[in-house]
């Protein structure tokens, strides 16, 4: 890989991590001393993606804003890597009028037509619409692709399998991405399926499947590059599974009492690993590390400030946007 590309992946991972740490801080800031999920500047469920940065950074490096990404209930890393406007996204998470959905959607329901980004809180249900986006791209004779993301838990849903079959049948430009972080809330992968890799399920639909085992951003980048190229060339869909890491709870407030692997988790954090790799390769030095971190912090704090400045929606507008205006 070119040094600039490697640095780009690193920068993106740092930006995502900085974002998630900041949301973590803002989410909990006013929920003390007693955690109340409905209280505070950011109410409701909050699923953060720390540990899964390599997947979003590696895949989205091959995309432009013309390509579509459909993410899950844990959407921020893909939104950021796909270039969704950070300020509008943050305003949405804060429930403000300048948010992507004018405060209607919230953190699990981010929609950005500018980058064809969407997500869904209903497990696996983002897969079929991604197939439809790919159909539209194909019909219009473009080389655009749709990327659909789920967790490994979602790979046990009917929608997942139907979408794979349809996309394969119609040879659509879709890249199916599975983030295997080992856990579907409290249920480990071993208790939800007998296949050790969801990549083998691709064979059931006659498409290529590939599993990346070590949460390495460069490995993801390589495999995703092949899948995206294949889709762009009109050769149809493929499936990529990445064995990644849920660094924190399923959602904020999750005490993870069920989790048996916690002790080893910090050591598997992909960010320091990649940083060390680039430092050792001479691609980064301490000054660069701090300046990249500072840049990320500035961008994220600016987005949070933008969100906080934006007003809350007027209750009198609560019934707007149920139907499109003629």
């Amino acid at each position, binding site marked *: 890989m070119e040094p600039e590309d490697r640095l780009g992946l690193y920068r993106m991972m740092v930006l995502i991590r900085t974002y998630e740490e900041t949301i973590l801080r803002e989410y909990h800031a006013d929920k003390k001393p*007693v*955690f*109340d*999920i*409905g*209280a505070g500047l950011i*109410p*409701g*469920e909050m699923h953060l993606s720390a540990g899964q940065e390599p997947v979003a950074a590696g895949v989205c490096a091959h995309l432009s804003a013309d390509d579509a990404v459909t993410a899950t209930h844990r959407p921020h890393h893909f939104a950021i890597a796909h270039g969704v406007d950070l300020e509008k996204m943050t305003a*949405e998470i804060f*429930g*403000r009028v300048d948010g992507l*959905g004018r*405060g*209607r*959607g*919230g*953190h*699990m*329901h981010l929609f950005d037509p500018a980058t064809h980004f969407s997500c*869904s*809180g*209903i*497990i*696996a*249900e983002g897969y079929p619409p991604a197939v439809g986006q790919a159909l539209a791209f194909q019909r219009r004779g473009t080389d655009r692709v749709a990327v659909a993301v789920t967790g490994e*838990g*979602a790979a*046990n*849903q*009917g*929608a997942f399998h139907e979408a794979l079959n349809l996309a394969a049948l119609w040879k659509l430009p879709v890249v199916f991405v599975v983030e295997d972080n080992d856990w*579907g*809330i*409290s*249920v480990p992968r071993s*208790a*939800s*399926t007998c296949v050790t890799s969801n990549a083998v399920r691709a064979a059931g639909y006659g498409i290529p499947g590939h599993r990346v085992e070590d949460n390495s951003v460069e490995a993801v980048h390589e495999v995703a590059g092949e899948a995206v190229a294949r889709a762009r060339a009109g050769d149809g869909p493929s499936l990529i599974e990445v064995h990644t890491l849920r660094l924190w709870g399923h959602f904020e*407030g999750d005490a993870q*009492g*069920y989790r048996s692997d916690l002790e080893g988790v910090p050591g598997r954090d992909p960010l320091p690993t990649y940083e060390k790799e680039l430092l050792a390769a001479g691609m980064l030095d301490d000054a660069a590390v701090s300046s990249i971190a500072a840049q990320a912090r500035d961008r994220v704090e600016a987005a949070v400030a933008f969100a906080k400045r934006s007003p*809350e*929606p*007027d*209750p*009198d*507008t*609560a*019934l707007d946007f*149920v139907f499109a205006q003629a």
Partner: protein
Amino acid sequence: MTLTDASASSSAPAHRKLSTAKAMVEAIAQEMERDEDVFVLGEDVGAYGGIFSSTTGLLDKFGPRRVMDTPISETAFIGAAIGAAVEGMRPVVELMFVDFFGVCMDQIYNHMAKIHFESGGNVTVPMVLTAAVGGGYSDGAQHSQCLWGTFAHLPGMKVVAPSNPADAKGLMTAAIRDDNPVVYLFHKGVMGLPWMAKNRRSIGPVPEGDHVVPIGKANVVRPGSDVTIVTLSLSVHHALDVAEELAPRGIDCEVVDLRSVVPLDTDTVLESVGRTGRLLVVDEDYLSFGLSGEVIARVAERDPGLLRAPAARVAVPDVPIPYARPLEYAVLPTPDRIRRAVLGLVSA
């Protein structure tokens, strides 16, 4: 079964207080002890104990054979519960949020709800489908709905929604023992969860031992003479708060907790409206084509002369539940909206 002995039940059992969640679990545990055929399945019902604590402690007590964590495959595991029920078992199967019903609705309304009918009454489906309902904590449009009207609209399943701990236990016991499929919808806001703003009535006295609340019997939770507020689930508490607030102003509200949407206790509603002459229906489900219209239609069909003023309703005005707090509270049936509706009725 752990039946309460005489001494325990005489030592003021009514003062034992439980959260709605614990009362619900107690009913399931007692029925599991009473009947080997009762078992629990669903997502995160085991070690996690249910995302809304609806199964806490059951795994420790009964083990993984009778408390089964499932993959995220609602069509398959709800369908499996149906099959087990057809063979005479009594599954309690959890759909984590009612909002997820879309991915498994065929199993629910074409199978669970129709098999008894299609078999000419020869096959029964004695199962309980539980799900969390309701909003008020900014969980967005895909995690905040009530949707009981949807299930009630489709024939063949009973639909219950407790508002308090004692009813949660009594309705669960009745649901498990019922030979029909029962959809048991618990509002997150009444469960008494430590991580959610707590309703003060979400922890209350619960009878020990056997406690059955018959399905299909509404409860007049507050007698009154001026206005009947018919409602259920969390809205019962808002209605009671409004009634208490208006009482000193000389407005006396009667509050009817439906407890069961199917069957709907029309008689209790009619008797109440007969006393007050005014009807307000409060429903956290969508306004149109739902529970509020149904209750008013039944009164209008049976005895429209009972109404001294046009009936009124407070419900979610046909909009997906918005995320931002000011928007969400503009569409939920808040005490403020209920109060205004009551005042409108008495001045009409």
